């Protein structure tokens, strides 16, 4: 078993101790690896974001690479709810019920501007819930209108990070559970300004 080492995460002490054909690992590590590699999402498309979710599941973007391509038609078999699309007040109670029907551990991705915070319906939409986090707890927000499939895959990888940080053991001699390790941001979004370059000011000038 290999664990992605691109992020330079600290390996558990027992990982990779011996020669190549001997595999040693912790139960926690093995369970987390199994969980993160078989996130079954629920078929849950509410609006236009669902088209992009389908594209992410199809061959070009291939969500199956992450073991998350098995879209289940029932919440009983799903680990991940990708809320893809506008959630109306009429739908909110159904979203809540479907979330409650899912077995633990369960995760929610809020996909698209509408589910993140109401989106274009924020001010005048009388029918739209202003963010699905008012209805169910959300783990990862994927902004965009709709988000590109790559963005959804990024969100999925952040869910995997979260699963990887899950701890199952307790502190030695006590009953206190060791808290889950929240993943550090993969990238901060901060960009160094190019210092030796003049700022581009007239890029919105109408030329035609």
């Amino acid at each position, binding site marked *: 078993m290999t664990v992605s080492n691109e992020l330079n995460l600290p390996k558990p002490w027992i990982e990779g101790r011996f020669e190549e054909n001997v595999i040693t690992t912790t139960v926690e590590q093995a369970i987390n690896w199994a969980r993160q590699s078989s996130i079954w999402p629920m078929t849950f498309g509410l609006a236009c974001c669902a088209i992009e979710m389908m594209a992410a599941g199809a061959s070009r973007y291939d969500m199956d690479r992450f073991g998350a391509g098995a879209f289940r038609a029932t919440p009983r078999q799903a680990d991940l709810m990708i809320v893809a699309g506008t959630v109306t*007040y*009429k739908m*909110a*109670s159904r979203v809540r019920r479907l979330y409650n029907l899912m077995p633990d551990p369960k995760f929610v991705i809020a996909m698209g501007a509408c589910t993140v915070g109401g989106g274009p319906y924020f001010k005048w939409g*009388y*029918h739209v*819930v*202003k963010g699905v986090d*008012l*209805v169910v707890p959300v783990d990862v927000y994927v902004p965009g209108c709709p988000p590109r499939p790559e963005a959804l895959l990024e969100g999925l990888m952040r869910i995997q990070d979260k699963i990887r940080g899950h701890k199952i053991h307790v502190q030695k001699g006590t009953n206190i559970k060791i808290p889950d390790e929240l993943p550090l941001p993969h990238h901060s979004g901060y960009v160094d300004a190019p210092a030796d370059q003049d700022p581009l000011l007239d890029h919105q000038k109408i030329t035609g």
Partner: protein
Amino acid sequence: MAQDLLSRLKGKFGDSITGANTENMDPWIEVAPEAIVEVSKYLSTEPDLKFDMLNCISGVDYLHTDEKKAKKVDWEPHTQVVYHLSSISNKHTLVLKVILPRWKDGKEGQLPEVPSVAGVWRTADWHEREVYDLNGIFFTGHPNLRRILCPEDWVGHPLRKDYEQPLEYHGIRGR
């Protein structure tokens, strides 16, 4: 065509035809609320008219909540129900309008009433439910007048100009 039809309807229904505009690109005829069912039946059954299709029913709310804007317009606050009719076989169209007060008897909260035309055109069933749901117009004699888009226990009619979004709905923040 519209002028002929108007005089024909006026001859048959008299005072029930309360107004018209035949110069428009879309000529319309205004009908009193009580007479809408008879007029509809006549228009849909008469062989040379045969308006056999109801394209849509619209509810229009004429109200400016801004006082400055309200002073500039020449109408009093009211609501309209607009029926767009077509004849597939005779290839012509017509618009009917019914003008109603915003509230019945001027009492706030009492929905204005107009007879349902669901018995003339089956399409009217869901269209009238939508107008009832969003514009708050009560269609008397409708077979199943329930909300169609909003949840059943929703309060108010969202497309009215003076509608105010509720603060919460079943524990979910509204505004």
